[in-house]
């Protein structure tokens, strides 16, 4: 049993999805899907503790030895991400039953949970696998499930958003496929560890350069790096709120993980940063993303859309961390990946609660909403502070490491840009706080009650996680530190 944990991680949700079809009754399906997700979460926690104790775990699928067979490889880099994906999914599913009541027609609820499980299986698969082609397959599993989930949105614009994402996502995935194909033609292997050994022999060929370029552009499309982010705001704004919670907290992080894995592990630091002007490209796009997306976020009335733009900005921070090409930089990126998952999860769950009561989350209708929904808005406030990076929240921890990584490189203008970006997020979070807390209730504000406990409890679990991991950083910092050290291990 313990030996097979790495594959169970992916198999449980993958098998639970079709099993849901047999259950039919939507309460049963929900209970079963949630149970399966919690089991998956337990598996990933076990995996993380195992990796922390005894190092990386390698699993040969079907007994076929790597590099011939497919290898699943869990190490310090992906184990925490597995915990994040399954954890957020489990918490969000707790709230899902109530949240989708008003947003998805009842006869589609079972299909919603099935798509959800498939999406999670895909994301976990991308993260756990050690095989390049497997990454593509799981990427498509999760993407197809995501398009379905987004198209379930109540507003008809959800359909259009889903179609746009389908086109953008497929182009991105095809680029990744081209990249993997060209890597294979040069090395004859698809196993990541094997690729890492063989690529240096041929690294000065045009084919490898092309492979790298296609792969990175494809991944950037998936992780919505500015200016390839155009699919994201609409998709997040019009998808059912609980879907947005899950996707915003996990999907783009997985793409960032793939990018880190290939830049540092497969192609290697040498190739990526000395043969390729990756540093300049990523830094420019990262900073541009932070500023453009934050400024656009300030002008949004739809709060889900505002938070979506804020996600694009946060992706800018993640990419900036990679562009530092230093151990601290990568550590900051990894840390921010986990922390951003926690804060966006909490913020979007608060929005899910608002949408549950009001039908929409438009700022113009939220005057004095804090007096009607105090717990929800308090959660939004703490999540917002965390997003800004106020001490005692997780946001502070990751911004701290980002800034110190910038200063370590002696790039003080970049450090200034990071702080300036945080100021922009103060503006868009403050807009909401001002309207919700300091405006008196107007005629425009619908007469609403506090959100039901089934949404409040998951929301506050995430909020408390924001505070807990902001104060006790020993676990997250040590894990990401080890992961970053692993990535740079070959160099030092």
């Amino acid at each position, binding site marked *: 049993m313990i030996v097979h944990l790495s594959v169970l991680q992916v198999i449980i949700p993958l098998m639970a999805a079709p099993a849901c079809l047999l259950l039919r009754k939507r309460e049963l399906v929900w209970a079963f899907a949630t149970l399966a997700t919690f089991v998956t979460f337990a598996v990933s926690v076990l995996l993380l503790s195992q990796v922390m104790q005894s190092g990386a775990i390698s699993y040969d699928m079907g007994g076929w030895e790597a590099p011939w067979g497919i290898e699943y490889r869990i190490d310090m880099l992906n184990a925490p991400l597995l915990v994040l994906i399954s954890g957020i999914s489990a918490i969000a599913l707790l709230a899902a039953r109530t949240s989708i009541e008003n947003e998805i027609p009842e006869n589609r609820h079972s299909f919603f949970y099935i798509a959800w499980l498939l999406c999670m299986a895909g994301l976990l698969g991308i993260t756990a696998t050690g095989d390049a082609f497997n990454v593509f397959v799981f990427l498509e599993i999760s993407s197809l499930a995501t398009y379905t989930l987004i198209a379930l949105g109540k507003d*008809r614009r959800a359909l259009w958003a889903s*179609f746009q994402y389908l086109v953008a996502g*497929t182009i991105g995935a095809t680029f990744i496929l*081209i990249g993997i*194909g060209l890597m*294979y*033609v040069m090395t004859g292997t698809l196993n990541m560890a094997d690729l890492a050994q063989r690529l240096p022999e041929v690294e000065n060929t045009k084919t490898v350069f092309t492979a790298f370029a296609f792969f990175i552009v494809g991944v950037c499309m998936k992780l919505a790096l500015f200016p390839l982010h155009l699919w994201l705001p609409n998709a997040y704004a019009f998808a059912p709120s609980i879907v947005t919670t899950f996707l915003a907290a996990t999907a783009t992080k997985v793409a960032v993980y793939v990018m880190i894995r290939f830049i540092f592990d497969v192609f290697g630091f040498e190739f990526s940063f000395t043969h390729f002007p990756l540093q300049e490209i990523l830094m420019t796009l990262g900073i541009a993303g932070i500023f453009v997306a934050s400024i656009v976020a300030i002008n949004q009335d739809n709060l889900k859309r505002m938070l979506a733009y804020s996600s694009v900005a946060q992706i800018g921070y993640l990419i900036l961390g990679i562009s530092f090409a230093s151990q601290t930089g990568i550590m900051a990126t990894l840390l921010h990946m986990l922390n951003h998952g926690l804060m966006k999860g909490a913020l979007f769950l608060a929005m899910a609660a608002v949408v549950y009561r009001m039908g929409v989350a438009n700022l113009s209708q939220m005057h004095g909403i804090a007096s009607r929904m105090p717990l929800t808005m308090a959660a939004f406030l703490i999540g917002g502070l965390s997003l800004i990076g106020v001490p005692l929240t997780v946001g502070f921890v990751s911004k701290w490491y980002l800034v110190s990584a910038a200063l370590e490189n002696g790039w003080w203008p970049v450090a200034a840009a990071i702080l300036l970006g945080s100021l922009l997020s103060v503006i868009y979070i403050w807009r909401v706080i001002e309207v919700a807390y300091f405006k008196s209730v107007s005629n425009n504000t619908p007469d609403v009650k506090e959100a039901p406990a089934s949404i409040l409890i998951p929301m506050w679990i995430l909020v408390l996680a924001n505070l807990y991991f902001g104060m006790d950083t020993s676990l997250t910092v040590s894990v990401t530190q080890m992961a970053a050290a692993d990535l740079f291990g070959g160099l030092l």
Partner: protein
Amino acid sequence: MEFLGLFNYWVVIVLMMIGFYIVICSNNLIKKLIGLTIFQTSVFIMYISMGKIDGGTAPILAEGVTLYSNPLTHVLILTAIVVGIATTALGLAIVVRIKESYGTVEEDDIHAKDKQA
């Protein structure tokens, strides 16, 4: 001679650009999906061309044959074809629902209707 030797890859590039152009420039959602399929198919051809070895035969153990083409790329592309079909099917399903709720499959009209609302 080199040009002819790389014939397959030229076809790949031409098909890929045709598909990409249709995806970007076409106003009709169905045509966009057709473009997307052509774009994906070009990559399938690239993979299959990669596996071919000059003078190699099908990878079946037989007397007197020592040179085989690489079957792995074909297997990979079988998977990718399935993924491609799933994507097209899902895309078409979404287009059907767009047609139901917007009454049109032209991108400009959809934008115009969204602006009105």
